[in-house]
């Protein structure tokens, strides 16, 4: 066959192929298009319904291959760094084994929510020190043994015992207790201590918001006591006996000890002669000294509360 004839035939075939494909090429194309359409229709339904026979409530096994291209998660925006909250400064717990430390002097209005419980010495404080605003449950000769019996506290014209009044009257923020000088002749220190402890427990229960101050005993002046024929038991040995009890009471009952004895005695540990007329009660200046000590020795209510652990121990049944 000559090239011309061959070329002619080949060109003829090529031209026919381009212009009209042979019938055997159409069928696969149609099948492929159909398969693609079928896939497009069927694929979205895969994995959406449980497989036949799957028990209700039981998830069908996940498809072997993901049936969709997951939308790419947005790049997380970096969260702003939170401003650290200021750490609260823990309130230091008051150490009840120590007497109240000297602090900045309070103003007189500090006593507007204060109550004083005591005997004739406290009555002298009321009359002569210049203290203002406080309430007083005090009485000549009052003892720790009469807190539930002797009616010395007046509320709305009616007189009550100290404990009755504490339960009926207002709630105080500070309660000062000064008792013991009239009990010097009661020679059972354990009963004195136990009675005092029980009283402090009751005061704390009746006045839960109050800082309780327990004042130890200022000494007496032996010379003036003798000259004024005070009873023999009114002496500084007996005062020392009780002043050994008060720190233990303060620590055990978690109340604030006020070392009034140190504030109102001289270098020899006695009440100075110029501070008293009868050896026991104070002069006006000495009552002012007493008040000044109280105004210089206070305990923050939060520190007092932070130091209270007795309630928890009590609840645990110990």
């Amino acid at each position, binding site marked *: 066959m000559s090239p011309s004839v061959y070329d002619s035939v080949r060109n003829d075939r090529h031209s026919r192929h381009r212009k009209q494909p042979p019938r055997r090429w159409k069928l696969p194309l149609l099948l492929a298009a159909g398969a693609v359409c079928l896939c497009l229709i069927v694929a979205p339904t895969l994995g959406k319904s449980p497989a036949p026979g799957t028990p209700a409530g039981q998830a069908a096994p996940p498809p072997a291959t993901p049936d969709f291209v997951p939308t790419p998660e947005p790049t997380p925006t970096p969260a702003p760094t939170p401003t650290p909250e200021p750490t609260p400064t823990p309130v230091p717990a008051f150490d009840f084994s120590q007497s109240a430390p000297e602090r900045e002097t309070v103003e007189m209005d500090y006593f507007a929510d204060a109550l004083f419980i005591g005997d*004739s010495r406290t009555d*002298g404080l009321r*009359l002569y020190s*210049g203290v203002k605003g406080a309430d007083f449950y005090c009485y*000549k000769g009052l003892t720790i043994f009469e807190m539930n019996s002797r009616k010395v506290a007046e509320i709305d014209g009616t007189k009550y015992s100290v404990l009755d009044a504490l339960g009926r009257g207002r709630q105080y923020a500070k309660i000062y207790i000064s008792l013991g000088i009239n009990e010097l002749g009661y020679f059972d220190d354990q009963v004195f201590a136990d009675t005092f402890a029980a009283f402090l427990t009751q005061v704390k229960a009746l006045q839960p918001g109050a800082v309780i101050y327990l004042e130890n005993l200022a000494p007496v002046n032996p010379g003036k006591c003798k000259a004024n024929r005070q009873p023999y038991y009114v002496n500084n040995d007996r005062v020392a006996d009780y002043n050994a009890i008060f720190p233990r009471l303060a620590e055990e009952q978690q109340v604030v000890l006020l070392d009034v004895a140190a504030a109102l005695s001289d270098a020899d540990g006695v009440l100075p002669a110029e501070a008293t*007329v009868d050896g026991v009660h*104070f002069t*006006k200046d000495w009552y002012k000294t007493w008040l000044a000590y109280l105004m210089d020795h206070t305990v923050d209510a939060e520190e007092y509360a932070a130091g209270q652990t007795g309630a928890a121990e009590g609840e645990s049944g110990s």
Partner: protein
Amino acid sequence: MKRVLLLLLAGVLSVGLAACGGGFAGYDPETTAQALLDSGAFEDALDTLDEESACMVYGLDPEQVEDCVVYASITAGAEEIAVLRMTDEDAAKAALEALKGRVEDQIAALKDYQPEEVGKLDGAILDRQGTTVLLAVPASHDLAQAALDALR
């Protein structure tokens, strides 16, 4: 002339009657308290109470107290001096009752604490003159009363 002499005589008599006691205007707090202190009627050591403390002790309304001088025992005893000038007579009457109550309270307090002091309270001097009120609890009733009489 006779008429003029009669008028002069009447005037002199009036002044004389006033001077004999009809004109006592009441107890001046400062003068009266000092006269009592100077009388020798008191044995105990006394010191002054300010007006606010005095009102607290006696249960008085400070608004009704014009002036006062008060001394009380600094040994928790019974002796006491209180001279009050009140705003009006009603307030003075109420103050007198309050002072009587103070005496009763002191008797109740001292009968166990300092029983020897109760006798002083039994001889307490209580008086009202117009708008002024007086309480004196001396060791010597007679000396105190003489000092008060001298003020009239």
